[in-house]
């Protein structure tokens, strides 16, 4: 009897200890203390929350590079805190509220799924500024900022169209949302601009980050004849699978060239630093106001970097021309006529797409195979 009680007690103690360890590891919070300023004015406190680990070489890593750029710019005037691997949903709300209570004056939430949690907390802390990446909901003290990855994917397409021998490109997609569809379409349009015979095969993996699944999807695309791959997922798996098979691929979010030295054609990156600096400067100057900021190549947020030596010089020049065109506003990726892959015209000849059009993309352009999954 007593033995039995002791046993179950031990069991529960063990379970509790393990659960506590897991919880601790799960919400590992890192603060990066700065040398305290004594007589100087209090530094501004800013916080970032990330959906992934900062070492992922992907999305969260890129945002953290942006944070570091802001830190370098403001020095002692800024004290930053990060919380990584915050699940989207209820936990996010708790983390954001906690950060607001700790005296952070501006909080950056860097994943789409933090939107509603942030909106809720924004209502409770009118004196704190909230910044949400890639979302669409705002409040008097909450605004949104976004990148234009389709600038990158169009240029990547130009390179891919030139380098493909099978005229078949492969795309590993995460979820069929406008952001990702924009990237698939721009990739295909870019490739067709140098090679009209290009077809794009798309495989959806229903995740942002699952390396084994991403490499299975990449392998499947290669098996079906695709010889240049691009992904809208965050790991290096697709690039590494291409390397293993002697095909080409691109880096995503950050410079991934070391993960596939032979396969790597270029990396599509986001450089968030300038935006974070601008937001903090506005807060310090008192000019912060609710708005939506969409930056791209022009503002230096997006870029296609490290174009490989195997890419012909004329193609590199073409990429530079496009980059310059986007910068001075003379070139728009989505310029009509744009047909979808059922033959319907989506944008009339010579018309340039506006932001509303881009926000609502729900189709594949001509040359992409298959149909956008409806989820029904």
């Amino acid at each position: 009897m007593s033995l039995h009680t002791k046993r179950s007690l031990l069991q529960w103690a063990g379970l509790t200890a393990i659960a506590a360890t897991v919880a601790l590891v799960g919400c590992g919070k890192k603060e990066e203390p700065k040398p305290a300023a004594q007589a100087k004015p209090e530094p501004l406190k800013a916080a970032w929350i990330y959906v992934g680990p900062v070492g992922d070489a992907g999305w969260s890593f890129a945002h953290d590079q942006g944070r570091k750029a802001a830190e370098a710019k403001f020095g002692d005037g800024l004290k930053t805190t990060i919380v990584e691997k915050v699940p989207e949903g209820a936990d996010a709300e708790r983390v954001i509220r906690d950060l607001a209570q700790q005296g952070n004056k501006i909080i950056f939430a860097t994943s789409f799924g933090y939107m509603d949690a942030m909106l809720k907390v924004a209502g409770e802390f009118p004196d704190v500024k909230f910044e949400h990446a890639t979302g669409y909901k705002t409040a008097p003290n909450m605004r949104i900022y976004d990148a234009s990855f389709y600038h990158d994917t169009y240029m990547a397409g130009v390179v891919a169209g030139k380098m493909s021998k099978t005229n078949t490109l492969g795309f590993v997609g995460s979820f069929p949302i406008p952001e990702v569809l924009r990237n698939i379409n721009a990739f295909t349009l870019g490739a067709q601009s140098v090679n009209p015979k290009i077809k794009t095969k798309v495989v959806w993996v229903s995740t942002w980050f699952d390396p084994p699944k991403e490499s299975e999807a990449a392998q499947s695309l290669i098996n079906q004849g695709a010889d240049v791959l691009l992904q809208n997922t965050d790991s290096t798996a697709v690039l590494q699978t291409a390397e293993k098979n002697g095909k080409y691929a691109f880096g995503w979010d950050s410079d991934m060239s070391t993960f596939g030295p032979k396969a790597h054609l270029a990396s599509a990156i986001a450089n968030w630093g300038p935006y974070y600096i601008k937001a903090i400067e506005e807060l310090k100057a008192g000019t912060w106001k609710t708005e939506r900021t969409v930056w791209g190549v022009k503002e230096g947020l997006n870029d296609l970097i490290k174009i490989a030596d195997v890419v012909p010089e004329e193609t590199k020049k073409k990429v530079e021309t496009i980059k310059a065109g986007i910068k001075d506003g003379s070139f728009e990726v989505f310029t009509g006529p744009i047909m979808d892959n059922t033959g319907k015209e989506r944008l009339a000849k010579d018309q340039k797409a506006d932001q509303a059009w881009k926000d609502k993309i729900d189709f594949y352009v001509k040359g992409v195979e298959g149909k956008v999954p409806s989820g029904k």
Partner: protein
Amino acid sequence: MNEVALLLAATIASGTPVALAGLGLLLNEKAGVLNLGAEGMMLIAAVTGFAVALGTGSDLLAFGAGALAGAVAAALFGGLVIWLNTNQYATGLALSLFGAGFSAFVGVGYVGKKLEDRVLYEVPGLSDLPFVGPVLFKQHPMAYVAMALIGLSIVFLYRTRAGLVLRAVGESPESAHALGYPVRRIRLAAVIVGGALCGVAGAFLSVVYAPMWVEGLVSGRGWIALALTTFATWRPARVLLGAYLFGGVTMLQFHLQGQGVEVASQLLAMLPYLATIVVLVLISRNAGWVRANMPASLGRPFFPGS
């Protein structure tokens, strides 16, 4: 034709780690111990294997380290459930949770690290055969190891005295005890072998298949391996078939998408798990079949002298 061959080849590659882990779990279930900690053991082994591969550059050492890590985790589990008689379900679940947290914790420094370039293997001569070559003879050596181990385990379980004793321990530990067999030690040995095989599977995932370390890398394959043992009604050959079926459905759904077949990707992503459930339902209808193969003392603790 060529695409079908490549699809089948990818199926075998995808099924290999699941088959290895499934076989390990089958062996310890044959001895009457249910270890729900497969996912955790695979994660611990995956991060260990990756660290060793990164440090030494040797895949072989990495597999060994993975096996060792899996075995140590399994021995811990075995000590708890076999000697302290803790509940097998709760302890196994705790091991899975612990493995997930522990591997994430020690693995932080390995995220985003890259192993040396992976080599493609092929069997000289045979790999040039039409169709059969690309399907069977361009696999990683571990694929053949998995097949061989399945064959060996059939011989062991049904053709050797040791296999008979192992099954006796799983069917009726009291009888085996009465005959003088050390039931607890046999069970612990089976659990450790099971953990080692799960460990090899985990190391294969991080060192060859992904190849990288990230938190939660195993992503459910441990649970699929557990389901496989029931799915296979505790027969090794069926574990292999089931693992390939799982791999096949996974790869087929990607293949169909690439072909532009209009199916919701979410539905396709669900298919491997759905297939497992359907087969489980089908075989459970045949009660005799399950009873003939399921180890009678599975999940029950054994108290010598009671």
